[in-house]
């Protein structure tokens, strides 16, 4: 430009024209400068903008990745929260079954590619047994079994990893898979390999076991899982552990509930027994009191009746002739009446004595007694006694004695009385049935003994008419009897009850109406 300026200045032109040209030159210069400036700048700017945008894009991509990661984490958290919510709504042991399909559902929602899933529960205290539940991703059960860990190489591996809280990863080809299935068939835990494999065995199975407190969570897939996916599985394993712990607690709760219910039941029946015993005790006291009181007047009745008869005898011997026939008859009547009074007085006396026996506390001493011999003796006693009273009486008797019973400590007279009562009742029952039966009927009474762990059992079984339900709870009550009036005191069973109780034993009855009864006495072997 400078040279151009010089050229213009050297031109043969007027000053105004030169000025004009110089001005034009200046403008041209400026325009060129501007153009050059714009050009350079455009290039620079273009490069600058490209650089800025490129780095911005890189930054944005980074941020996008961060956001995606956060999104994924949020989804994972939501899944785990859902599982946790379900777990916290568990109320019974059955609810555990709902949790596992839920876990598989969450994995499916999160697009984790798995083809097999399962839960392994480890029972360390029980012979290192592993309990395996396998299912398909949609929750259908494939197999479930429980075997000691050492039974297969793989289950031992599972156990070892669980014990050291390590994740177990493995990779099986078709062959390994089949070998495993066959081993399971061998052990008898699955029926057939086909059943186990459902479809084709996977050609490539990646196994992932994640440990939790009570076992392992298993996922099988056709490719190895990513760290992210493994982290999610770990969280789900922990969630399942919580669920299982809850399930365990429910179990314990249910067991405790049962126990409590049982105890309650026992308490109730004990209460009943106590009430019964109370009743018996008070009745006993009552009867003792009354018996005691009545003895005195009874004595007067008996004595004075006898005295009367002696007086009548005297009158009769003083009379030479029976001048007055009427007087004679009257005296005879009075005599007979007195006899009746004496008879019934004696009867009343017997009743009172029986009652007093009843209320007397056992003064007998315990001594080692051969129960079998005792039973045998009293059976014979009873049988012959009844035959003596009633010639028509006939019944078959059987004995079944447990020879391993040695001697036990009892008051022999008291226990003897109990056995006697029971046998007497049995004979009565069968002979009554015989009277009322037309057809073939073999009255049978069986006396048997048995030794249990800490008790000795004496059973008296008859095939009489049985005891009707509605009187069953009255039979041990004092004075209760089904015999006709005058026959028996109704005190036999209540006395027996007291004696057995005093020995710390139990007396029970089992009966079937029309078929017979069985009385069972259990005595403790101290």
């Amino acid at each position: 430009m400078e040279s151009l300026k010089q050229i213009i200045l050297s031109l043969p032109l007027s000053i105004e024209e030169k000025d004009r040209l110089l001005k034009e030159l200046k403008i041209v210069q400026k325009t060129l400068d501007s153009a050059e400036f714009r050009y350079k700048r455009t290039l620079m700017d273009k490069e600058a903008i490209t650089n800025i945008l490129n780095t911005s894009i890189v930054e944005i991509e980074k941020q996008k990745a961060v956001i995606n990661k956060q999104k994924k984490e949020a989804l994972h958290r939501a899944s785990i929260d859902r599982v946790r919510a379900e777990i916290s709504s568990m109320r019974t042991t059955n609810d555990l079954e709902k949790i596992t399909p839920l876990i598989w559902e969450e994995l499916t929602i999160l697009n984790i590619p798995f083809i097999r899933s399962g839960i392994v529960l480890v029972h360390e205290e029980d012979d290192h047994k592993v309990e395996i539940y396998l299912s398909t991703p949609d929750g259908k059960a494939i197999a479930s079994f429980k075997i000691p860990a050492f039974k297969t190489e793989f289950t031992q591996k599972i156990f070892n990893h669980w014990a050291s809280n390590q994740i177990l990863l493995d990779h099986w080809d078709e062959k390994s898979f089949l070998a495993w299935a066959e081993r399971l068939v061998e052990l008898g835990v699955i029926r057939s390999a086909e059943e186990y494999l459902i479809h084709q065995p996977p050609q490539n199975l990646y196994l992932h076991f994640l440990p939790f407190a009570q076992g392992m969570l298993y996922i099988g897939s056709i490719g190895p899982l990513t760290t992210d996916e493994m982290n999610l599985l770990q969280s789900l394993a922990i969630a399942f552990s919580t669920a299982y712990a809850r399930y365990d607690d429910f179990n314990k709760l249910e067991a405790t509930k049962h126990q409590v219910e049982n105890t309650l039941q026992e308490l109730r029946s004990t209460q009943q027994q106590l009430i019964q015993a109370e009743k018996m005790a008070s009745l006993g006291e009552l009867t003792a009191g009354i018996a005691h009181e009545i003895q005195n007047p009874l004595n007067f009745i008996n004595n004075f009746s006898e005295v009367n008869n002696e007086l009548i005898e005297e009158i009769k011997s003083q009379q030479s002739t029976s001048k007055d026939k009427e007087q004679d008859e009257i005296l005879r009547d009075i005599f007979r009446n007195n006899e009746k009074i004496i008879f019934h007085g004696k009867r009343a006396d017997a009743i009172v004595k029986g009652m007093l026996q009843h209320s007397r506390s056992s003064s007998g001493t315990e001594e080692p007694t051969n129960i079998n011999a005792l039973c045998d003796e009293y059976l014979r006693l009873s049988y012959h006694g009844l035959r003596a009273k009633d010639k028509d009486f006939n019944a078959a008797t059987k004995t079944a004695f447990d020879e391993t019973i040695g001697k036990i400590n009892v008051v022999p007279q008291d226990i003897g009385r109990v056995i006697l009562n029971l046998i007497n009742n049995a004979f009565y029952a069968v002979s009554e049935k015989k009277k009322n039966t037309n057809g073939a009927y073999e009255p049978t009474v069986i006396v048997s003994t048995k030794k249990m762990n800490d008790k000795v059992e004496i059973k008296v079984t008859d095939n009489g008419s049985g005891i009707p339900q509605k009187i069953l709870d009255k039979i041990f009550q004092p004075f209760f009897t089904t015999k006709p009036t005058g026959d028996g005191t109704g005190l036999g069973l209540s006395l027996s009850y007291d004696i057995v109780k005093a020995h710390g034993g139990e007396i029970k009855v089992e009966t079937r109406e029309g078929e017979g009864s069985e009385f069972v006495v259990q005595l403790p072997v101290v």
Partner: protein
Amino acid sequence: MKAKNIYGENVQEIKSKFAQATADSFSPTLAIVFCSITQDRKALISFFDEKGIDVFGSTTAGEIIDDEVMEHTTVIMLLDMKKENYKIFHEESSDTYKLSNDLAKLAKKKFSNPSVVIISSGLTIDAEQIIKGAKDFDENIPLYGGLAGDDLTMKASYVFSNQFESSTGMIALVLNNEKILVHGLATSGWDDIGIEKTITKSTGNVVYTIDDEPAVDVFVKFFKFTDSVDNRSEIVAMNFAQYPLQLKKDNGNVVLRAPLMVDIESRALIFAGGIPQGSKVKFSVPPGFDLIEKTAERVSSLKKNISNPDAVLMFSCKARHLALGPMTSDEAGKIRSIWDKPLIGFFTYGEIGTAKESVCDFHNETCSMVVMEEKK
């Protein structure tokens, strides 16, 4: 009032041009003097002082007169503003805040409704304190102006008035708003691009690292200058100046910060304004060459406030000059043609003004315009 512009490359020329300008009945009361440090300030001051004309002066990094851009010269706008309608205050102090606060107080004392055009010298001051000082006193006083320059020699800039000259001082031209309509606007035309970056180490207006990388390296990476960066030179500054940073401030404003210089040892960039450590910044899209049109368009929005001004002042950032290159004078020309009235200005080391829909702030790479009209 009447305004006339004169310029010259030396005091002699000024004197003769002054004589020409005042040949008619024009009797100026106020001389707004923007000159390069190479010019003889003292002579100029005493020349006007003898004539009883108030001097409002500053050194520059380049001068603007009407539609021309100059360097190493003196440009002067002569105004016959009524003396009772304005007052020039000046003070010298190293406490920028106090300085500006004091000047604001004086302004308010003089007129109940003042506008203040303020110019500060000093190369290492915290220019934000100028605004803070004045606004803390009275936030309603309109504030315009900029920082004096020194032809990019970075030795010392000066503000001066009759009987005053300082390289660490401030001058304020206080105008009575009741009598003089004053309106202004700051506009830059650089928009932001890309994602936010953090100023990880900085003190004052020196930025050492951006996102933990040396500032110079960051700029080189993006703006890929293979020209030796090891040159503490204008060329480097020119290259970087067109890529100012967009700084988000606490008051919600986004202001530009233009890199002016490079410090090789620390690989730091020196900006024409403070950037606090920890600030968030963005790069700017280099504006297209329609920037000038855009700027003119924005400035012309002042037309609705003042349709017939007497004079126009222009404080334009030196970085802007570097960025626009030969087209800078086009911008001046375009703006002048809005009102076709005398326009005077200079290239500053920072501008004070209010951008559209913002509060008053300290800017870079910006054009801060002031338009005045004396009421009849």
